[in-house]
């Protein structure tokens, strides 16, 4: 029953933001797709919103404990996939029986770390957004916590430059560190929204302990009348600031990632 998860105030804050984003969808009986730790705290906090869960983790044993721990929740479908989450999104999710209303890719470390940075993740994200696009006028929550154990700035630069427009490259020029990474990720998401004529809103994007970032995007292909959040164009998600929390800081600093 030991858990590898170390609960922190930051995690609690992210989960609460995720719950509120879920509430903003304005519908019930949602499907969660994520990588819960053994204690499955994400699912617990979201429980009143959820009907189904899809849990993914490399470690089957961790999934077994998570399954045991959420057995008191009256969920309809509980799927547990022992595999890499990116691989699942890339290969299995498009044909899966359930569409995730709330997706939470909660990486303790990494999240963007493959040898060919972004290639694997981009395929997975593209497949994910393609699946979501099958449901027009329905808003979804996509949350991503990442702490890049990446291969440095050049890897991002290379990845983004492979597909970025001149204007995007211009935006990235001169940025470093968290601002560069954040904008790179938002550019990726923005492009995916564009590909499917989707609108979106960065509901939450926070930086903790200088490296851990959590991003919550709410998006929709066409207007979802139930969703209470106003959404903007794919480009609009680039201009939302990041809230940076320093240790013990109650009110975060706002970082404008585009530098304007």
């Amino acid at each position: 029953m030991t858990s590898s998860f170390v609960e922190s105030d930051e995690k609690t804050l992210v989960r609460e933001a995720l719950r509120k984003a879920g509430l903003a969808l304005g519908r019930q009986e949602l499907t969660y797709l994520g990588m819960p730790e053994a204690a499955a705290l994400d699912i617990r906090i979201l429980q009143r919103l959820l009907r189904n869960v899809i849990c993914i983790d490399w470690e089957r044993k961790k999934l077994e404990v998570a399954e045991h721990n959420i057995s008191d929740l009256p969920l309809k479908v509980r799927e547990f996939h022992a595999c890499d989450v990116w691989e699942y999104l890339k290969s299995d999710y498009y044909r899966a029986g359930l569409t995730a209303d709330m997706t939470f890719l909660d990486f303790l470390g990494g999240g963007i770390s493959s040898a060919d940075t972004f290639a694997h993740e981009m395929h997975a994200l593209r497949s994910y957004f393609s699946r979501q696009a099958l449901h027009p006028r329905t808003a979804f929550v996509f949350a991503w916590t990442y702490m890049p154990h990446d291969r440095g700035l050049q890897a991002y630069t290379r990845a983004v430059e492979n597909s970025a427009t001149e204007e995007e490259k211009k935006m990235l020029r001169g940025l470093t560190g968290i601002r560069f990474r954040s904008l790179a990720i938002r550019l990726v998401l923005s492009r995916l929204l564009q590909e499917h004529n989707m609108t979106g809103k960065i509901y939450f994007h926070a930086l903790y302990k200088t490296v851990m970032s959590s991003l919550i995007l709410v998006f929709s292909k066409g207007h979802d009348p139930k969703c209470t959040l106003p959404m903007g164009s794919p480009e609009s998600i680039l201009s939302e600031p990041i809230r940076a929390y320093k240790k013990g800081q109650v009110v975060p600093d706002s970082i404008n990632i585009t530098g304007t």
Partner: protein
Amino acid sequence: MARTKQSNLTDDLLKQYGFQAKSDVKYSLEDIGSNFVYQLTTDIHTSIGSVFRELTKNSYDSYLELPETSRDEAIDRGIVISRSRDVGGAGKLTIADSGNGRSPEELKRFLQIGLAPGKSSDPTLRRTGFRGIGSWAMIACGSQIIISSQQFESTTRGILIINVAEMYKTMARNPTMEAILNNPECVRFGEAEHPLEEHGTKIEIRCDGPRRWVGSYELNRLYSHTDPEDTDLRSKLLTHCQIAWAKQSPYYRQIAAIYKKARYLPVPVFLDGDPVEKQIPPELSLFDGPTNIKLDGKSGKTVAVGWVAENPDQTGVGGVSDVEEELVGVQLCVVNSPIGEKNIHSENVRATILKWYVGEVHVVDDDIKPNADGTGLRGDVNDEFITSLQNFYTTLEERAEQKSQEISALRKVTKATASLLKLAEGKAEEWEVTYDVRTAQQAIEKREGEKWSNTTLEKEWKAAVKSLESNKNYRSLLKKKATSGAAKNTDGGTKKTGGTSKRSGTTSTVTIDSKDIQKLVAELILKFEEFNLTKDQIEELLDLIRAAMKSSEAMG
């Protein structure tokens, strides 16, 4: 005090028989053979329904152990059952609650035998478990069982792991209980700090495959029910477990008042995310309850409270109304836990008459307890209770009989009206219609001044009579002789009966031997019995046959 007295008695007997006390002979787990485990799991809890009954009862009782202050709406009460199968075919079934939970030390209770179970923290609520053996019901159900539990307001969670497959392997050598219960390969305890202040118990039954035998012992008994596609489990839960009526169900308020008398706290049960609940269909609009069931003897105290719902203008509720088969009949319950099959001890009434009802009898007397597997009452239950229960059934039978007569009378009247319409359209002959009209008239006369069992039928009756009497041919046909229009019998009463009937220009000739008719009628009567028709209904049908025979004879 009692112990000292008993000890003295045994000492006295020792002396009397000329023996010295020998105090070094003692019992331990070594004196109980491990076969006892299997007997507990399979001999007592013989059916899967009985296993689920025990599992849900344990969960239910854990809510009663919560401190009273916490037992409010803030706590989501629920017994959550979920199932899964993995790609390899292994199955898993979990049953979880958010009740009081157990401390790591108290988890031991799951494998204790016959020790006093916990207590309800609220005297207005009654526990279901009282033997301390229910947990053993689950042992043969899987190949591994994992029970984790966390007590209310505690941050420590305990775990008990039972390796049933290993336990059975060990049992092949016929060891003692000591060798099973204290073997870490069979039974293991653990504990951990848990980050949230959760509480409750989660029981995970793992089946590594279909039912199989390890030596002489069977495990994975629950395997077929670990399949989320299996629909039988819901039916088993409805039949064997404490399933409450849906709050949206008609008459829930009245039923909830009876629950209160039975000291039952409704706790919803979920199966794979969906609530399992009983629903009274709206067509069963005739509700009667609470009916106090009192002991016949001198005390006359109320020992149970009953209620029934029925369709006011129909006989039977299964098939006729949209009622799930599991709900048809009258169910005896203790703390809303079903006792035995529907209509238990109803030998005093016609076998199927209680199928006219959906209902329950809730025991409110603590001395009336179920037997271990819930298939009946304990042997020590006062016989007077069964008599009282049967009296309740008798009143239901009488009511059903009365309703049957009323429905029969109503049908006669509506049939006569329909026949009159056919006559007007030239689709029926006058002699046929005359018979129907006379039969209806007799029914009307018979019901004159009689009370009706329910207002629905009474209203329908009044409307039907009005409709009949307003028909312009009604009075005139009544005045005619019943035999008018019928030809004289030319056969002279011989065995052969021949007849020619003319209608709508067609002619048919039937020749039937009277013995054949006799045989046919006898078969029909048996069929009527099979169809559970009342005596009145049977008699009515026989009247029709007699009339048909007469007409046939009259027509030669």
